[in-house]
């Protein structure tokens, strides 16, 4: 379990993460969504221990982060320059040494020539190589920044299959940041949306699909929680959250897919609301 309590990370005057609290159970898979600059990457880096927090705490399974918990954490960053001067063989050996486990089995997917320099790999190849290193250490926690779109369809499948296997076998806890949900949609069971360093929505995907509806109308009835609305041709699209049964007396009530819900929440009108 991960317990984040009042976490704040500052860059100069900007609070990239601003007093954020959340609890993540063992084995949970979370989609971390939000507009550019919402603080997703900063939160992941703080969770991975790459960034020091200015305030608040993160505890892993009831322990403060120390070298022992760090070994159980894997982090796939969107921009990886680490190990750039090394070859595949050197990086694998170093990584295996650090985590105390051999990373030789790597992935069933692409096998990289041992002599290849990491610097010569494409972004997608680096991503899958670092994922293979990370998963070889059999981590308890995996934090993945917005990297899935670097991967071609085949590598994406390798990527998702390897993660799914560890979720099933080891109850891996996964947090994946992504701009769009459709590439990884089958994995997350819970979605957390960030805005300006804070959490604006935290729901289980199934529950969210039931609690979020859209209808068309001219004005919002007082007893219906319309989170925001926008003009659509001659009428207004009203987005309701959380769901109330009264909404069904209205015209054209629709449930939405996860990607439509995310689009409604992220940036734009909802943020200004």
């Amino acid at each position, binding site marked *: 379990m991960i317990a984040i309590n009042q976490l704040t990370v500052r860059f100069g005057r900007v609070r990239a993460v601003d007093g954020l609290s959340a609890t993540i159970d063992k084995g949970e898979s979370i989609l971390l969504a939000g507009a550019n600059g919402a603080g997703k990457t900063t939160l992941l880096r703080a969770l991975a221990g790459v960034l020091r927090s200015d305030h608040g705490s993160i505890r892993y399974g009831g322990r403060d982060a120390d070298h022992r918990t760090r070994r159980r954490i894997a982090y796939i960053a969107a921009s990886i320059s680490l190990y750039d001067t090394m070859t595949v063989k050197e990086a694998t050996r170093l990584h295996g040494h650090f985590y105390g486990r051999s990373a030789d089995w790597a992935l069933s997917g692409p096998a990289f020539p041992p002599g290849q320099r990491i610097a010569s790999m494409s972004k997608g190849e680096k991503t899958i190589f670092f994922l293979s290193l990370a998963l070889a250490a059999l981590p308890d926690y995996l934090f993945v920044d917005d990297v899935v779109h670097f991967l071609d369809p085949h590598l994406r499948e390798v990527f998702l299959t390897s993660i799914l296997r560890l979720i*099933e076998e080891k109850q891996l806890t996964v947090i994946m940041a992504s701009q769009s949900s459709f590439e990884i949609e089958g994995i997350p069971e819970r979605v957390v949306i960030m805005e300006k360093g804070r959490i604006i929505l935290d729901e289980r995907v199934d529950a969210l699909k039931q609690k979020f509806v859209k209808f068309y109308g001219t004005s919002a009835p007082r007893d219906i929680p319309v989170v925001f609305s926008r003009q659509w041709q001659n009428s207004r699209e009203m987005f309701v959250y959380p769901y109330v049964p009264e909404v069904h007396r209205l015209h054209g009530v629709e449930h939405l897919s996860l990607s439509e819900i995310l689009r409604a929440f992220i940036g734009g009108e909802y943020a200004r609301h």
Partner: protein
Amino acid sequence: MGSFSALYSKENTIREKIKKSVDKTVSLYYYCDTVKNELFAELAVDFASPLPVYEQIKRSIKQAIARSIISESQALPSIRDLASFLKINPNTVARAYRELTQEKIVNGRAGVGFWVETTERMELDKSDLLREEFKKFMEKAIEMGFSQRQIRELIDRYFPEGGAR
């Protein structure tokens, strides 16, 4: 002449590519048909749907039972196999199986395996499933502007003369 041979080799590469993709498709079908079972081919998840994924799995398994694609006491794919086939979280598959177990349509346990417990109850649900599909069909037909008579004709054409079936 030079351009001809270039074209020829290009054609060969394309042919090679097509052959590869066909081989892949064939082996996938082979996998669906024999190694696992036909059920895999029936189970698909639509992420663009507002229906929760576990609910979609429940429905397609019920439909597969109603259509006799899978019969009583036959094994369902393991949670792991189905999750990696559909690229979805194993917990989602587990939830679908758990709820089907609670509804007494399926029996089993994680780690041991799941199988179809009874198809009897499905007989009751069959008409619900049909009604659901029929409603979708009717809504589309009406949207497309077919009249009541035209839709009737279309349905009647499915049955032999006299309509006794």
